[in-house]
């Protein structure tokens, strides 16, 4: 197992290097650079940006150098100094920007994830055990509805209803008075209140997906002969349900955890924009649009790393959860 993991990690290194290059190249691909995007914004606000101003700015930011040179400098700094570069937009080192948003991003993602698993797995089991019952149809319908409604629209609708019913559209993650306040019990409550809509909106689609997967897996497992064997042994139904089909059905779900690793750190971009959530997704989206390239680049690189790592984790998890593969490694 260890050997396998090491082998996989070693193989991931050239992949990551290649990805870093691609990432940097692609970020440069859309026309214009940070300075033109910045100048366009400032001009729209009434400021006059002349060619000279822009040239000067490009020189200040090192954007006048050829792409490969910029890439080399960037990578060199990452590797040797752990410095991921500088965000033009925030006037801060990239690391600081990422840090600024990481806390709340993790809160949103983890709460959403908990919501997903806590809701989806029991419902998945229920709908499989009671296949074709009224409850099955109800939950299936609900989960499909969640799947079918585009996030951004659902977000707007929920915000509007929250406004008409409670007088507060619950924008962002905190009420105004708590944004800059120190952490307190009230602030936590306020955060939880504001988390309801994001969790529903972000979580619904994947919850629906999870319910379907869980239901399908359970249906497969429930009809396996080992369930009959277990029954013939005199086990109680509950024990059978949880020890045999549920445990087996959870395997693929647990192993997909690795896949969602990168999304935990981003949060849902579109939903976050609509709901005004101060998390990584929109920050990175803005960075991409505004060609704040070191921020965007470092972030994309980070995401790529997580994807590679996530795949690795998924594979290892899958191997570890499947005795067949696990014992093979033990054999080695």
């Amino acid at each position: 197992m260890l050997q396998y993991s090491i082998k996989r990690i070693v193989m991931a290194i050239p992949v990551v290097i290649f990805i870093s290059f691609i990432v940097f190249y692609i970020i440069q691909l859309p026309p214009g650079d940070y300075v033109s995007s910045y100048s366009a914004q400032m001009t729209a606000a009434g400021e006059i940006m002349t060619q000279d101003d822009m040239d000067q700015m490009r020189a200040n930011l090192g954007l006048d150098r050829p792409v490969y040179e910029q890439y080399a400098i960037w990578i060199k700094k990452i590797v040797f100094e752990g410095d991921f570069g500088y965000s033009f937009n925030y006037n801060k080192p990239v690391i600081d920007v990422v840090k600024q948003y990481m806390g709340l991003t993790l809160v949103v993602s983890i709460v959403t994830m908990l919501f997903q698993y806590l809701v989806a797995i029991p419902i998945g089991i229920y709908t499989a055990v009671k296949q074709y019952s009224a409850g099955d149809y109800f939950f299936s319908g609900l989960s499909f509805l969640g799947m079918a409604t585009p996030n951004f629209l659902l977000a707007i609708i929920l915000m509007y209803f929250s406004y008409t019913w409670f007088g507060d559209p619950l924008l962002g993650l905190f009420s105004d008075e708590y944004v800059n306040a120190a952490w307190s019990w009230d602030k936590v409550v306020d955060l939880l209140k504001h988390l309801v809509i994001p969790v529903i909106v972000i979580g619904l689609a994947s919850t629906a997906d999870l319910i379907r997967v869980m239901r399908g897996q359970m249906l497969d497992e429930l009809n396996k002969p080992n369930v009959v064997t277990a029954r013939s042994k005199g086990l109680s139904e509950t024990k059978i349900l949880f020890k045999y089909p549920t445990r087996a059905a959870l395997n693929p779900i647990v192993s997909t955890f690795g896949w969602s690793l990168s999304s935990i750190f981003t949060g849902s971009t579109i939903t976050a924009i609509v709901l005004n959530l101060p998390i990584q997704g929109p920050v990175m989206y803005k960075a991409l649009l505004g060609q704040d390239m070191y921020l965007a680049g470092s972030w994309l690189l980070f995401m790529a790393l997580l994807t590679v790592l996530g795949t690795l984790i998924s594979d290892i998890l899958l191997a570890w959860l499947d005795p067949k593969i696990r014992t093979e490694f033990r054999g080695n």
Partner: protein
Amino acid sequence: MRTLPIFKRAKTEAFLESAAKDINYSSQWKLIYMKFKRHKLARISLIVLGVLYFVALFAQFIAPYSLQSYDSKYVNAPPMTLRFVDADGKFHLRPFVYELKSARDPDTMRKIFVSDTEKRYALKWFVQGEEYKFLGMFKTKLHLFGVEQPGRLFMFGTDAMGRDMFSRIVLGSQISLSIPLVGVGISFVLGLIIGGISGYFGGWLDSIIQRIIEIIRSFPTLPLWMALSAAIPPRVPVVTMYLYIVIIFALIGWTDLARVVRGKFISLKNEDYVVAAKIAGVGNTKIIVKHLLPGFMSYLVVATTLAIPNMILSETAMSFLGLGIRSPATSWGVLLQEAQKVENVALYPWKLIPLGIVVLTVLAYNFLGDGLRDAADPYKK
């Protein structure tokens, strides 16, 4: 009558299935069909999808108006009610609508619409309207239904430019229901072939393919699309551009399927019957086509039907990011993106009708996939 060698069946499957199987010996596909027929929701879904695709095919004929029938008089008009009883209490067999009169509220500038009960327009079949090309072949002015000029029929109300929402939904279905199929088709073929190769042959080929998949999965798609949409010259119509985007989407999106296919191939290739075939000297292609593919064809069918609604939804997301279709070309994504404004939710809720249609379509596809899944499941009766 066919011969049934009773002692040759070394393996019997789960008892219930065997109870049915030997008694009524049918092919796998026939069985799936039979089981599918029993899934009521899936059957209804199939009918719903049939209707939707039929409407999409004859969209220009079914839609009373075109995509460019802007009319400043009827901006943001609510859906009209089809009436049978007129203002005098008289019953009419043929449903009709009243003429809409509009004026702006001087304070809020909102368009106020009042039915003019003096003027009735009966709903008619096969009326003359705007000219279009029927199935892209010949020109005609005939529309399935409508009311006579100058009357207007807005069954789902109008948008901010005075266009009939019903017509836009109908015409938008052409893009929304067709382009996703292209994307799914490409992903499907790529995922199947590459995943199959990776899983069947294994070894260094598998390693390389897996690394390539990892690279593709971590591709930054957003800047890629931004670059693409900037690079495409303005003369390329938006629909074509969107098609390109979907193709790129598919070129990236096949990796998921490929991984599943690979997994299935790996587990199937060690099954006795495949090993037996290999020992017997059957060629690789034949093994794959004859022995491996049927083993999870059902899974593929299901995965595909479930991928289509995802594609439809991702189109709406692309429209949100400004990378999708742009009006006057219309897709459901465009309509949803237009609806995504507080003022529409607050004042003109009928603009959310397209959401209902998208939900319906996605539901139909999902239930269809679900039905297929249940039907293809050999353990299910």
